[in-house]
């Protein structure tokens, strides 16, 4: 019985694969007509093979589509088709030209005055501005305006103001590095990721000499990150090297690209590099990375009267600071990643991988 069953199955296979001779096919068809049980067997087997090939075809189609999907620039596509921005942004879009013209007129007027009074020649020593961002500045200037109208005595701001900068993960368990000047005098600290989730953090170490601060996310809602994609460069980088940064000059992450323009920072400061890169208030504390995705520094300031001259504390000082933290004072071990998974990736893929590790630091 078993033996004949095997033979029958093989015969059906041969029939379905077209391996039978003409006379064999004739016999086969005849048997199907004469023996309904056999016919059912054939149909069943044929069906099963059909479902099997359907399955395989779909698997193949899916894997081919996934391969194509990988080649798409989703970021770019998203920008093209993303939903309309909310009202405020739409108004900004609409009126930004007016705003720009107004700002330009103001700028010309102010710089004209400053130039004629010889202001620029006197202020060389205060030429570096730190890039923390005053989040409430717009609101405060409005408030000030209202106060003037009401003509009440100016008692100074009651709210100490909110400031913002950038920070990035030192380890996946919630340690974040930023600039000291960003968190200086903070009552409370929050870090906010690219998804807009904010976590409470505390300062665990400061190093005012190198303008560095290490924070720890203490929020119970925080879940450990994936393994960090970047490493910290232990040597000095070369002048001319392409670099990029990610920061929060506004409420979204902004990518900036440039090159290392000098081995030393402002007025020969050996702690920092000079970088030719567009940065704005809020970029302070952002990572500076080279092409291979090594952290080579942390953005901390820019020269006010020179276009594109920014400064970044060298990564070696970040490492020094971390070493200086007494490990036994920490709740959780702070282990620096030694694996780099960014090298060889395109810039946009590097950005995508970095996104979850760069935070906006909010200071209250």
């Amino acid at each position, binding site marked *: 019985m078993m033996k004949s069953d095997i033979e029958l199955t*093989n015969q059906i296979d041969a029939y379905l694969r077209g391996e039978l001779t003409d006379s064999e096919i004739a016999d086969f068809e005849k048997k199907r007509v004469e023996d309904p049980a056999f016919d059912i067997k054939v149909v069943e087997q044929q069906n*099963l093979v059909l479902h099997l090939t359907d399955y395989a075809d*779909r698997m193949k189609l*899916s894997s081919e589509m996934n391969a194509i999907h990988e080649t798409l620039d*989703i970021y770019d596509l*998203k920008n093209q*088709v993303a939903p309309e921005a909310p009202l405020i942004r739409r108004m900004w879009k609409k009126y930004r030209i007016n705003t720009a013209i107004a700002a330009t007129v103001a700028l010309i007027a102010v710089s004209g005055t400053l130039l004629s009074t010889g202001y620029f020649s006197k202020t060389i020593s205060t030429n570096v501005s730190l890039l923390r961002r005053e989040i409430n500045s717009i609101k405060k200037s409005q408030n000030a305006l209202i106060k003037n109208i009401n003509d009440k005595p100016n008692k100074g701001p009651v709210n100490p103001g909110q400031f913002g900068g950038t920070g990035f993960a030192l380890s996946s368990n919630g340690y974040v590095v930023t600039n000291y000047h960003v968190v200086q005098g903070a009552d409370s600290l929050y870090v906010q990721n690219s998804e807009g989730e904010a976590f409470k953090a505390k300062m665990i170490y400061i190093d005012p000499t190198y303008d560095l601060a290490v924070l720890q996310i203490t929020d119970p809602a925080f879940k450990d990150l994936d393994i960090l994609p970047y490493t910290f460069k232990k040597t000095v980088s070369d002048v001319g090297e392409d670099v990029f940064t990610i920061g929060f000059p506004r409420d979204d992450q902004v990518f900036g690209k440039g090159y290392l323009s000098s081995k030393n920072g402002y007025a020969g400061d050996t702690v920092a590099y000079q970088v030719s890169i567009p940065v704005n208030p809020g970029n302070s504390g952002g990572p500076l990375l080279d092409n291979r995705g090594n952290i080579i520094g942390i953005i901390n300031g820019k020269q006010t009267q020179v276009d594109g001259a920014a400064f970044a504390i060298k990564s070696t000082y970040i490492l020094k600071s971390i070493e200086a933290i007494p490990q036994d004072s920490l709740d959780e071990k702070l282990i620096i990643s030694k694996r780099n998974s960014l090298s060889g990736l395109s810039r946009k893929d590097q950005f995508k991988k970095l996104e979850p590790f760069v935070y906006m630091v909010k200071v209250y």
Partner: protein
Amino acid sequence: MKKEIKSSGPADSEIILGILNDSKEILNRLYVTYFPMVLQLVLNNSGNEDDAKDVFQESVIVLYNKVKSGNFELNSKLKTFIYSVSRRLWLKRLNAQSKTLRNIEDFSEFIPVEDDLERHEEKDRQFRVMELALNQLGEPCKTIIEDYYLQSKSMQEICEKFGYTNADNAKTQKYKCLQRLKKLFFQA
């Protein structure tokens, strides 16, 4: 309706022919041409890019099955068909997540595709059953079945690959495997 994304893709007839010939090139052009449209639809109706990917790929599967089964008539534009299927699939998904849209924001015209989706659902169900059956089948059966029925390898090759001493043993093994698969698939 908001701005439509301009698409200067391949002609519909070219795509249909490409699908019938399993052309990778056509699949690529189809994907590149129409994915942005579905991305736009999903992003603007409370989905993300991964949702768009899933929905679009499923729509392409629907299209392929329809074309290959020979009942694709070019009485609507291919673009409209893909848009309509994606739209339907996305609304269903939102519904399943008990998220309802007050009103869907549309970016293209669309046609009723209920029949196509019903057929697809049945096919999809069979696909899942087969997937499960193959996973439960275990080795060496899974490989033998795939080699013989999908790769169209000869019994001789399978015999050598698995080190069976003679072709009869291999045939017996294949028979047993097929019986098991039959049982797993039809009785699921």
